[in-house]
């Protein structure tokens, strides 16, 4: 710009300057008086060129008639640029507002798709369970026909029970675990991405492992039966059990000896860990004994690639 290089030029409108300056010594050189970049930005907020132009050509400010003549053409120019400014502002606002609903729409569409697919999967799962029960019934009938068959049938139902492919019922423990109260009073790591005030997949893993360790015979989370093939993992913010997204609070139900299960769990490593998590991050959990629990069948019973060794079948 024109006045940028000249040291001796008036840096600020001295004529109007005194009230406009709060601090900084007006007498000394402007370069010396600027203690920091921010000061400089603050004090030289007005383009120097205004003062420069006014010094070079003081006519319009002084006399009335020429100023009027100038403002006719110049005013038009300024107006044109203010129209541009208005356009810019309106466009920017419109742009932002247009983008927000689009994002919300995408989100909504995704949510409804998730809901729809989950319902579909639920339906299919129900179908699978019905068919499986049917298969079991028919197989049982067929096996009843011979003595060998009867023994086999018994063996099969025992295995079904322990592998978790049939619904089971019995006394046990119910653990309800939930995210911390969203008050924000608990310390949480600002960075790192993992919000420790939420229940994490590893909390659930620890909980389930603790229950197995304490002697549980069947475990389910939010109605998803845990079998040997069930994974507990997280995808984004959601916890997947058996590849199905769950939402808090998580209800973990375990069937086992009602008197032994609770103390064994509470005194085990998992129980201690849970108490630490509760005290540190405010994760809420509640353990209660239940006389009769009903756990559904697990889903992943079909092995496609794992084959039994031939000679083992005797």
């Amino acid at each position: 710009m024109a006045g940028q290089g000249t040291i001796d030029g008036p840096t600020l409108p001295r004529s109007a300057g005194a009230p406009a300056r709060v601090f900084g010594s007006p007498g000394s050189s402007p370069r010396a008086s600027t203690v920091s970049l921010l000061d400089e930005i603050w004090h030289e907020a007005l383009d120097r060129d205004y003062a420069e132009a006014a010094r070079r050509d003081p006519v319009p400010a002084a006399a009335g008639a020429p100023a009027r003549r100038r403002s006719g053409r110049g005013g038009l120019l300024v107006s044109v640029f203010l129209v541009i400014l208005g356009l810019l502002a309106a466009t920017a606002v419109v742009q932002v507002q247009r983008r927000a609903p689009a994002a919300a729409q995408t989100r909504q569409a995704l949510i409804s798709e998730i809901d729809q697919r989950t319902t579909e999967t639920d339906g299919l799962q129900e179908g699978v369970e019905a068919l499986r029960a049917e298969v079991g019934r028919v197989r049982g009938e067929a096996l009843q026909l011979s003595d060998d068959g009867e023994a086999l049938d018994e063996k099969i139902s025992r295995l079904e029970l322990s592998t978790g492919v049939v619904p089971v019922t019995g006394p046990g423990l119910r653990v309800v675990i939930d995210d911390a109260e969203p008050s924000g009073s608990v310390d949480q790591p600002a960075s790192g991405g993992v919000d420790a005030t939420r229940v994490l997949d590893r909390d659930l893993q620890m909980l389930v492992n603790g229950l197995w360790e304490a002697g549980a015979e069947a475990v389910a989370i939010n109605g998803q039966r845990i079998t040997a093939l069930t994974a507990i993992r997280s995808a984004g913010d959601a916890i997947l059990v058996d590849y199905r997204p769950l939402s808090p609070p998580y209800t973990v139900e375990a069937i086992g000896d009602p008197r032994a299960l609770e103390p064994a769990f509470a005194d085990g490593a998992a129980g201690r860990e849970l108490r630490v998590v509760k005290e540190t991050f405010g994760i809420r959990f509640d353990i209660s004994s239940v006389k009769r629990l009903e756990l559904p069948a697990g889903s992943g019973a079909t092995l496609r690639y794992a084959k039994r060794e031939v000679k083992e079948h005797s």
Partner: protein
Amino acid sequence: MIAALGLLIGVVVGLLVQPTVPFWLQPYLPIALIAALDAVFGGVRALLEGIFNDKVFVVSFVSNILVAALVVFIGDQIGVGAQLSTAVVVVLGIRIFSNAAAIRRQLFHA
């Protein structure tokens, strides 16, 4: 007065027409707006101090927008676009505040 009318016309036209901004230009729009606002606040201050000059205003308006957009563009190319936009907004924001303070003083004390 005409100028304020121009601003109003611009806003109304912008809201009515709702021009579609090309995708590559979208990140520069807010920056350009801030830069233009800075020029306008400077202009108003100069007007109140009696040294307004339309040529200077137009030059500062255009150069402000171009420089701000250029800085952000370069930042985008070298991967610090977001940080440089912040820098531009901070610097121009300080200038706007400073000029607004000067305008306030002119209006209420002079």
